């Protein structure tokens, strides 16, 4: 198929439909409105259904109902709206239902702003919901990668019966790039014989539930969930290593920020300064094993984020004291400039040499 030029939010919505999504429930919020708008136009053409919910709380609970009914279903929102969905996400994880949740994040806290931000790293990877649960989090850096990951997210969600979050910032949602809708790898998926569609008098009732009043049973359930999350850690980690050979510093960055860092790397290489990039594609499970591939030439790690420092916690856990970890970030909707990152790299090198 030929490449077509699309806006990020529309490409994400189109990819969802190509990935089998037939139901979408959402509530308007900038900068992700093109997703529900696209779904409102397109889902009915493929026999699906779009509902504008009265709130994000309602939207995520509609997702719970549709996912339990066996459908491929998605919701999208931006930071404050995702915060409202957290209770529902916890229920969906507890009841082991598959769904895809897109967070085109903006600046916070509070009403914050509407410009791109990575201040939702904690919210996406730790969740704001209660209990022992995890969500798989993809952080695409380009629109092509967004399209690929959104399509795959539905397979992965069904495979694990777990919510999958697409973490994009406002930049990913709003920019335009050429994309191609390719076939994605299909997983072997068992039939959804747990879904509710009426017993027709032929089977025992199916029950979608996250309540276990007996603490021993709840503990058992939670350890079983943990085993599932461990399988995700084992099998679903994704990352990109770029220009690490002979590098002195590794910048760790994801999403939009990683693209600025690639510019930085090419500018610095002309000056003879070699910098590498470690780009997590899954924010959870975090690519800890990528850090084992970091070559001996590396003197320090630098986390570059569009936040005041959130992913840096995971970098420190993964680095486990092997390298000093520095930070450069912009917050509130400001995007780091290559110049500022270059200055930070040089400052670190002056200290290290």
């Amino acid at each position, binding site marked *: 198929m030929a490449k077509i030029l699309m806006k990020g939010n529309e490409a994400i919505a189109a990819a969802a439909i190509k990935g089998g999504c037939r*139901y979408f429930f959402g509530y308007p919020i900038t900068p992700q409105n093109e997703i529900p708008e696209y779904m409102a136009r397109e889902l009915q053409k493929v026999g699906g259904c779009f509902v504008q919910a*009265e709130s994000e709380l*309602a939207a995520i609970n509609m997702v719970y109902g*549709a996912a339990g009914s066996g459908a491929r279903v998605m919701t999208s929102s931006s930071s404050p709206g995702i915060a409202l969905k957290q*209770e*529902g996400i916890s*229920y969906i994880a507890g009841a082991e239902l598959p769904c895809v949740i897109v967070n085109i994040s903006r600046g916070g806290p509070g009403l914050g702003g509407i410009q791109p931000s990575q201040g939702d790293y904690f919210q996406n990877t730790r969740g704001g919901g209660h209990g022992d649960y995890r969500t798989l989090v993809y952080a695409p850096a380009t629109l092509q990668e967004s399209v690929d990951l959104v399509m795959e997210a539905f397979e992965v969600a069904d495979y694990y019966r777990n919510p999958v979050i697409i973490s994009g910032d406002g930049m990913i949602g709003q920019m335009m790039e050429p994309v191609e809708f390719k076939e994605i790898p299909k997983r072997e998926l068992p039939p959804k014989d747990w879904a509710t*569609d009426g017993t027709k*008098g032929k089977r025992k009732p199916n029950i979608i539930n996250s309540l276990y009043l007996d603490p021993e049973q709840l503990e058992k359930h939670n350890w079983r969930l943990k085993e599932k999350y461990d399988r995700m850690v084992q099998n679903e980690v994704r990352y990109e290593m770029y220009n690490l050979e002979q590098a002195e510093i590794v910048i760790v960055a994801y999403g939009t920020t990683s693209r600025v860092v690639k510019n930085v790397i090419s500018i610095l290489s002309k000056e003879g300064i070699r910098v590498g990039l470690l780009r997590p594609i899954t924010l959870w499970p975090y690519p800890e094993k990528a850090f084992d591939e970091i070559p001996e030439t590396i003197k320090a790690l630098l986390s570059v984020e569009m936040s005041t420092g959130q992913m840096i916690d995971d970098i420190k856990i993964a680095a486990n004291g092997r390298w000093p970890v520095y930070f450069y970030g912009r917050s509130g909707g400001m995007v780091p400039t290559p110049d500022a990152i270059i200055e930070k790299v040089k400052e670190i090198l002056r200290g290290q040499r």
Partner: protein
Amino acid sequence: METIFRKTEGLTDALFHYCPGCTHGIIHRIVAETLEELDVLGKAIGVAPVGCGVLAYEYFNCDMYQAAHGRAPAVATGIKRVHPDNIVFTYQGDGDLASIGTAEIVHAAHRGEKITTIFVNNTIYGMTGGQMAPTTLIGQKATTAPYGREVAHAGYPLRIAEMLATIQGAAFVERVAVNTPANIRKAKNAIRKAFETQIKGEGFSIVEVLSTCSTNWGLTPIEALKWLEENMIPYYPLGNFRTPGR
């Protein structure tokens, strides 16, 4: 031998956990009987609330959900949009529906969502131990209204049936009580009409059922039935507020 009475197929064999004198059990039974009599058990999908009815998913003999507190109408919306030919219902208490979940019930009605809601109004939060609900009557004591509900402090009790009846998409709205055999028969009749409204695709339907909570009201079961009659019915008048085509 001729069978003259048997338990409805609409209920499982699980034993109810409800307190002695609680009318949740009666309401479960008439809902289940109605599903069986309308021959829709095999395509029924129910949504249990957070509240004393939380374990309804173990009692109704059909596909079931347990929903977050107040969100059952949103969950039912998701189900019904995927399975428009199934019969989808929610079963909710007055904390669940009239407090934390007011937005969800109002907007399910507003969209004319083709679902049926059984709304159990016992004027109190039963499961959490007797706190004040929006439906708690003036002067009625609750653990968070220890001197009785005062209007100046907590406002007037919320009349849900009347409120929802103002919404165009709410095709069938009726308030019933289960304090006497005659009222139970009327309640069952209303529940049947509500499900028929859904089966015919006429819009949202709700039956508000005045119910007792002898445990948290601090009354014997018989006193509780009397209290319902003397105090609840005067403030929450029984009757139909909306019927399709009327």
